[in-house]
């Protein structure tokens, strides 16, 4: 049973660009899946559909084998944590403590138990010294860490990141990326990251590429992201390693590891030493 299974999904706003057409994909348990596409390709819409914030017009969404509908949406939301793009607009509590408590309150956790849970998860995301801070005293990256702590406290199996780092500075991005990586490895969470960062895609297990509402690619990044011209047509940037290997191949050097910068560097060094 896969954590997320989407079949023939269709959705449109009234007169908007974002539309989702005949989208089908599967996210495997414990994988780090990236969903990439140009602005307006429908990728954020998919996140909202999966968590039931938007209602699909056609198709089915299965979370852990359970069909998403009006009756099941509440219980399905317990299994999925979602971090949105704007750090301020998902910070509800007056302080870090209060914000983490919000989810616990919704799930009727006993107030007596809350302090321990809050401290545990604030610690896991590295925000223990900031427990009583108001959001105005926190950076974007710190606020996103708090969002993740609030989610972890509910112990979901699936974590969806909806462009969660696009409003952060490089330090904040690095912060969140390493935290998510850690959660993926240590807690074995299933991660679905909606992004436009092509380098992040190259580090993931599985990539889904969207273009104008449809899925155009679905597979392993090192195989899917190699054609620079195609990526440009899809309004995406090619990974640097791919661009470089294309230039090298024009000069007669054909590499095997085109999708992986480290692999490429090693291969080039081998070539250097051979001659």
């Amino acid at each position, binding site marked *: 049973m896969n954590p997320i299974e989407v079949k023939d999904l269709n959705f449109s706003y009234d007169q908007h660009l974002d539309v989702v057409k005949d989208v089908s994909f599967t996210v495997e348990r414990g994988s780090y899946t990236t969903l990439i596409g140009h602005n307006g390709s429908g990728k954020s819409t998919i996140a909202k559909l999966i*968590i039931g914030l938007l209602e699909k017009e056609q198709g089915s969404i299965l979370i852990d084998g359970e069909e998403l509908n009006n009756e099941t949406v509440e219980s399905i939301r317990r299994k999925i944590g979602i971090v949105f793009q704007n750090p301020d*607009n998902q910070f509800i509590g007056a302080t870090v403590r209060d914000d983490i408590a919000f989810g616990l309150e*919704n799930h009727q*956790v006993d*107030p007596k138990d809350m302090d321990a849970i809050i401290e545990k998860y604030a610690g896991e995301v590295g925000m223990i010294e900031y427990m009583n801070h108001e*959001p105005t005293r926190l950076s974007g990256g710190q606020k996103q860490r708090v969002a993740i702590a609030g989610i972890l406290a509910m112990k979901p199996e699936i974590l969806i990141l909806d462009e969660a780092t696009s409003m952060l500075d490089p330090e904040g991005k690095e912060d969140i990326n390493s935290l998510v990586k850690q959660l993926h490895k240590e807690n074995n969470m299933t991660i679905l990251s909606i992004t436009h960062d092509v380098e992040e895609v190259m580090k993931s297990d599985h990539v889904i590429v969207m273009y104008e509402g449809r899925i155009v690619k679905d597979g392993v990044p090192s195989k899917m992201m190699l054609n620079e011209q195609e990526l440009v047509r899809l309004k995406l940037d090619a990974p640097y390693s791919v661009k470089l290997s294309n230039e090298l191949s024009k000069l007669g050097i054909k590499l095997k590891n085109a999708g992986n910068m480290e692999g490429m560097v090693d291969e080039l060094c081998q070539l250097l030493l051979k001659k």
Partner: protein
Amino acid sequence: MNNIALGRYLPLDSIVHKMDPRYKLVAMLVLMIAIFFPSGYIGYAIIGSFVLFSLLLAKLNIKMILRAMKPMLFMLVFLTFVNTLVLRTGYVLIDLFGFKVYSDAIFQTLYITIRLLLMIMVTTILTASTKPLDLTLAIEDLFSPLKRFGFPAHEIAMMISIALRFIPTLIDETNRIMKAQASRGVDLKEGTFKEKIMAILSLIVPLFVSSFQRAEELADAMEARGYIPSAKRTRYKQLKHTMKDWVMMFCVICVLGSVIWISL
């Protein structure tokens, strides 16, 4: 803005600061009622001494209160003037070149002044010693019995606490918008009437638009975290009363009781 003590929370360390906000809120209402009974000098002396005592306990000083009274000064002078002209009962207090000032006029004005002063003192003690969020919790708790009759106590409390959380954020945003529009030549000091309207619109419209978007995103985030307004939920912050709160309540009720007794 920094000088207005009225309505602002002051993070001091006093007994009153630590009291249960529910009790403080109810006490304030009881005292307000007491202030409106016509209990004469003795009555106001009783109320006054209790209030002064609370003020000192809360580590506030009278200067602050007097400063808060300043805006009313003009009104009070005007009132004195009107009363002197209109109320011509009682005995003659002053005789100025044939113009007589009667006692009732002065005493009425004095009454109003004292009532005003006491009201300001009481509300200031409450707001200065209680964090806005704690007041919200108190309101939620006090109104929750009304949930049975459909009164949305929790929802109102949630709205107030979110509003409070976002006030600093909105202030920051307003500043940013003002700067952005200033960079486009907006100058609130000069310009024709039409230009000034446009200038104000250039501040208000973006603020509204972003607030609506913010509200939508916030609602999505809350829903995604399992929030259902009408559903049962627990609350992290629990208010706890102590003996001190009971004692204070008792004193306040005594004040009200004696004031009513005197008035009859």
